[in-house]
């Protein structure tokens, strides 16, 4: 019986495992191997160059730029998305009118939830088209057109949005505009995630805090937020991965996929550029491996920082 069961399980597992090894694990291994070569992608020759690609990577001005842009997103995306999502979740769940008894969200909170969650349902292509229309640089742009009609800006000097490399707080403006899209698209999901977590906290605890004299804000900061720690840290990990990727938005929204003049260059766009535009497959693979190692280090750090302890209500 035992033997038969093992065979049964193996029978089911064999095919997916083989497919996984062939299509996922092997290419990873291959990438690592290619990263030690100067393969150009089209020839059979894969000259072994040792750690040259990695040494070059550290000297590459563009890669360094891309890295710091990723770091910017890595900090800005989770911080702003989580802060906004927490604020909205607070309003929708416990931020209702102060002059009435009990705890409730603002009026019409369920409608707001749907509205805030809506961007999550749109495909990235739709999001990009929508924001391209918003960010358009002439009087046909939704924002520029309106501002021009209102004579806030002149027709000759439209807002440049994603084609604006001017630094703001040391970061090119284009990255801030991309950040805005990421926040818009991501906040709804995390708001729903936090709302669900908040609703799983027994109501009694909020009420006890109220009776203890805590204002809504104080009870949120001192009672609710500590109870959301696990959920927030999960959100942090997800958003961290999104920030490390960010490829699609940069690719679709920015001029010359990382422009203008490399102002929105990120790791992923550099990998793409090196592999498919410059034919430096080996180098692109080294970049990808470096990004993977960076992501793993971050994940390990995250796991160390989050001390997991179970909460009993």
């Amino acid at each position, binding site marked *: 019986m035992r033997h038969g069961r093992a065979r049964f399980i193996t029978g089911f597992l064999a095919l997916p495992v083989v497919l996984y090894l062939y299509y996922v694990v092997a290419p990873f291994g291959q990438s690592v191997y290619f990263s030690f070569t100067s393969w150009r992608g089209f020839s059979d020759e894969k000259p072994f160059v040792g750690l040259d690609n990695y040494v070059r990577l550290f000297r590459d001005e563009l890669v360094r730029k891309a890295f710091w842009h990723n770091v910017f997103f890595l900090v800005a995306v989770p911080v702003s998305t989580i802060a906004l999502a927490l604020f909205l979740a607070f309003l929708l769940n416990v931020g209702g009118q102060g002059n009435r008894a009990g705890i409730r969200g603002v009026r019409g909170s369920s409608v707001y939830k749907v509205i805030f969650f809506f961007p999550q349902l749109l495909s990235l292509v739709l999001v990009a088209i929508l924001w391209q229309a918003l960010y358009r640089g002439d009087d046909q742009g939704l924002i520029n057109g309106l501002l021009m009609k209102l004579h806030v800006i002149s027709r000759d000097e439209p807002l440049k949005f994603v084609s604006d490399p001017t630094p703001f707080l040391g970061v090119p403006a284009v990255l801030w505009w991309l950040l805005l899209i990421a926040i818009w698209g991501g906040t709804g999901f995390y708001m729903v995630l936090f709302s669900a977590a908040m609703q799983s906290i027994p109501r009694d605890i909020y009420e006890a805090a109220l009776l203890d004299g805590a204002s809504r804000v104080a009870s949120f900061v001192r009672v609710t937020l500590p109870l959301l720690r696990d959920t927030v840290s999960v959100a942090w990990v997800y958003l961290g991965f999104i920030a490390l990727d960010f490829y699609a938005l940069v690719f679709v929204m920015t001029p010359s996929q990382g422009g203008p003049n490399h102002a929105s260059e990120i790791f992923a766009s550099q990998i793409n550029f090196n592999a498919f535009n410059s034919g430096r497959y080996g180098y692109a693979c080294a970049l990808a491996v470096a990004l993977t190692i960076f992501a793993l280090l971050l994940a390990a750090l995250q796991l160390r920082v989050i001390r997991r302890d179970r909460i*009993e209500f």
Partner: protein
Amino acid sequence: MNAPLPGTRPQAANIPLQRARPEATGIRLEQVSKRFRGGVLAVDRVDLDVRPGEFVVLVGPSGCGKSTLLRMIAGLEAVSGGRIWLGDQDVTSRLPQERDVAMVFQSYALYPRMTVRRNLGFGLRMRHTGRPERNRRVAEVAEVLGLEHLLDRRPAALSGGQRQRVAMGRAIVREPKAFLMDEPLSNLDAKLRVSMRAQLSRLHQRLGTTTVYVTHDQVEAMTLGQRVAVLRDGVLQQCDTPQHLFRHPVNLFVAAFIGSPSMNFVAASVSGGAAHFADLRVPLPAGSSLATADRQVILGIRPTGFGVAESNGWPTLRAVPDVVEELGDERNLIIDINAPRVDTDATRAAVAARTADDALLLPEEKARFTVRVPGDHPVSIGEPLDLAVNPERLYFFDPETGQTLR
């Protein structure tokens, strides 16, 4: 009623008198109503006056509106009609944090991420009490409740009884105008509940803080309350001392709800100065207003209203016990009575509030009595015995209205 009960924890007993509160605040409810969205009337024009320092228990079957009423006093539930006064202040439309009352929840509602110390001190911190004063008061309350060694633990690392004491401590430490307790003992096992009940009584004696306590357990209500308010379907039935409630219930529901085991009911008639049921004639007590009446009534007899037939002249009832429940010093006998069973909304509500199993014991048509006899009296199932009915311990109710006929 506040006599110490067995099982009290010694640490509570050894602490000298804490703060007596001569300035204790009363609570007054005037025609308080609560109608939920959807039209359900949970509380219907309740008038209740809790005197300063008094311990009042709200009791009733589940869904009777007692918790809603408590939450309205706390400010956690909006009042649909009427007014609530704390002392001489109308707090009807005040926020919970402005009312200065403390509540102990059934679930304890401790803050899971905070240690016991911070749980206790949270209310003081929110009220901007200085750290030295806060520490002093937390230490004092921890000592009273025997929590000193637990101060640095989180709630998850505490037993049910310890959590309950922390919840109590959190209420006490703030020295609020009133304690509101929503079934605070119902998550404890039976033995611990008895011991905590005693502790609660002692604490109240010491602190003298006005307390409103909600429970569905009439034993808890009777043992704890200086006065007990019985609610049914959102309507206050009677608010009285436990003794008065037990001896002089105003209606069938209160009579059926208070007392354990429940009062026995049987359809009877009154004529010629005596009550008649099951071929038995029981003379009415002297001075009864029913002396000259000729009518149908519902007759109620407590299980303790019987005695073993002796030469005391009480009318006797020959009965065959179906079930004998041994309680040690006493026995409960369950006997069939050859008279129609009383089945009104009030008795059903009161019985259902106890246990569903009680209801199953009721036979279809015949009345069934529970009789309490001394444990040393020889009784066996199926063996007939004579039970004497104490005419002084009879209750009469109007079959239509359920009101007590005196």
